[in-house]
């Protein structure tokens, strides 16, 4: 195929008939390529968003768990309940274990 044929678009013509099928396939491929590129960009943005969200949620979890752990400390619980007549147990508790 000569250079002039490509420039003038003659390669779309064979035996005086327009090769529409090839033209459509070519356009479809171009559109598919653009679409996939957009999807890829979208995924990248979505992944970054999820990573940020994951960090936020982890941070929130640790922040809440830290507060809860501190509140669960025996000394903290005792401070809250000692005025209500609760005392620190010193006698050994029993754990009932059943055996077959």
């Amino acid at each position, binding site marked *: 195929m000569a250079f002039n044929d490509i420039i003038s678009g003659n390669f779309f013509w064979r035996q005086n008939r327009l090769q529409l099928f090839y033209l459509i396939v070519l356009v479809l491929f171009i559109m598919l390529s653009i679409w996939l590129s957009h999807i*890829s*960009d979208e995924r*990248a*943005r979505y992944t*970054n968003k999820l990573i940020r969200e994951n*960090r*936020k949620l*982890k*941070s*929130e979890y*640790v*922040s*809440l*768990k*830290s*507060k809860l*752990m*501190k509140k669960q*400390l*025996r*000394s903290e619980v005792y401070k809250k309940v000692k005025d209500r007549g609760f005392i*620190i*147990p*010193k*006698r*050994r*508790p*029993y*754990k*009932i*274990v*059943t*055996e*077959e």
Partner: protein
Amino acid sequence: MKKGNITTRTTVMLMLIIVGALLILLQLFRIQYIDGTYYRSLAEKYSIKEFKVPANRGNIYSADDKLLAVTVPLYKVAFDPQVAKEYVFNQNLPALAKGLSSILGESENYWRTRLKKARKKGSRYVLIAKNIDFSQFEKLKKLPLFNLGRYKGGFIFESQPARIYPFGNMLRRTIGVARSDIKFGLEGAYHKILEGKDGKRLKQKINSRTWKPINNFNETEPVEGKDLETTIRMDFQDIAHQALSEQLTKFNADHGTVIIMEVKTGAIKAMVNLGRNENGNYVEKYNYAVGEKYEPGSLMKTFTYLTFFEDEKIDTSDIVHFQPAGFQYYDRIIKDSHEHEKPGMRVSEALALSSNIVTVKLTDSFYRSHPKRFIDKWIDMGINKKTGFEIKGEPEPLLPYPSKDIKKWKPIQLGMISFGYEVMLTPLQILTLYNAIANNGTKMKPYLVQKIKHNNKTIKKIPPEVLEKHMASKENIKKIQKLLRKVVKEGTARNINSPYVKIAGKTGTSQTEYWTSNKQYIASFAGYFPADKPEYSMIVVIHKPDKSMGYYGNVVAGKVFQKIAEEINGIVPREFIVKNEK
């Protein structure tokens, strides 16, 4: 105008245009071909970049699944007061100041004045808070004006990953730190396991804020750090921390330490190190338990009597006669803390009442001509050996060895060593020895990490390690166990004889800075509980209590031991087995 002039001018103009065009073409040729490689690499450099994929540092957990150290983002929040319009700023300022005051402290007026001044001065960056956690950040983000965002409200923030310790100062020295300039504690000892390995990923810039990965995979995958599960029980740690802190405050002492160990395994269940800071508060400032050796005084008498029994020099019921006023030993007079009424006592009483006179007299009479036999026995028991604890900073114990060289060994040292002077050990090394007595003579290696985990699955279990199967004969260990119980029942520590839990142990009151005019004391108590079936061993050491308030081991350290032992007794259940009959 002449025709010739016009033709000349047109030709000149044409020539200039052609020259200009040629210059542009030449420049294009230079950019495309001569400097093409350089510009192409420059374009690649700015649009494709290698990003570090940071590995998550592993967490540190307690044995009861509490988070001791974790990496999370911390936030720095700032404010640009010039961004909001005048009426928006003025309208929202009171509510913003109120919110800031309730979240970060300071008065509403403080915030209102500060932000107003900054706007007036034309300042574009006012630091609001740094190193705040997620929950505080979320609250700040929702405040009036801040909720309008960066471009309408002037809310600026950045986040940085930071290592946080949810229990604050508690256990701080044991957990430690791993920075590029300093590493200590568990963070330092297990840095290689915790840190993981960063990965790499190539990304392409797709807009000013977003970089898109070139491939669907990382060029180098990050290797996440592993988690550590320690042997620490936070309920024990809390009890010990509070008890020591209260006693240090009560006696206005300089510093102190408590270590609790599981008898059968050597697992450390709590390790508290509190020292007074410049504000007079007690905080974890140095790991005294691991790194500070001192002359333990009477705590070492336990091993002196064990040596007598091992060498079959004497038995518990034998009676020793002495001068109650004191025992002349070389150029010194050895005295007891309280003068005894009778000039004789049984060996069992000598240990229970912690008699310096009897201890030195017996040591001198048995080993004066063969001091090496005595010291060799202590070496056999491992008193001169490090425990090999995983945290850095454990010093070598000091135990002088008899020598003919007067610079290395003076004969008086034998007697001094027998009651705990001239010999130096750390609290952890002493506890390891007492734990061996509680464990019928088997010396266990103290340890802090019991599991290495990844994604909640155990990948390595660290088993207990035996340092010495038999520190002494079982028979003699039993004798010492009985004597240690007697110390608490009838001896120097009868003030801590608990009705709830049987305690066995030994008091120690040693002098320090005795070479100065201001002699100070170190009060110690080492032992275990329950005495008849030992589960936990413990040592309490308190340095430099206020002498006017008390300094004896039984009062200053013993009371802390009793409090901790009783409270732990109240939470560790005893199994009550019920037969289920069908």
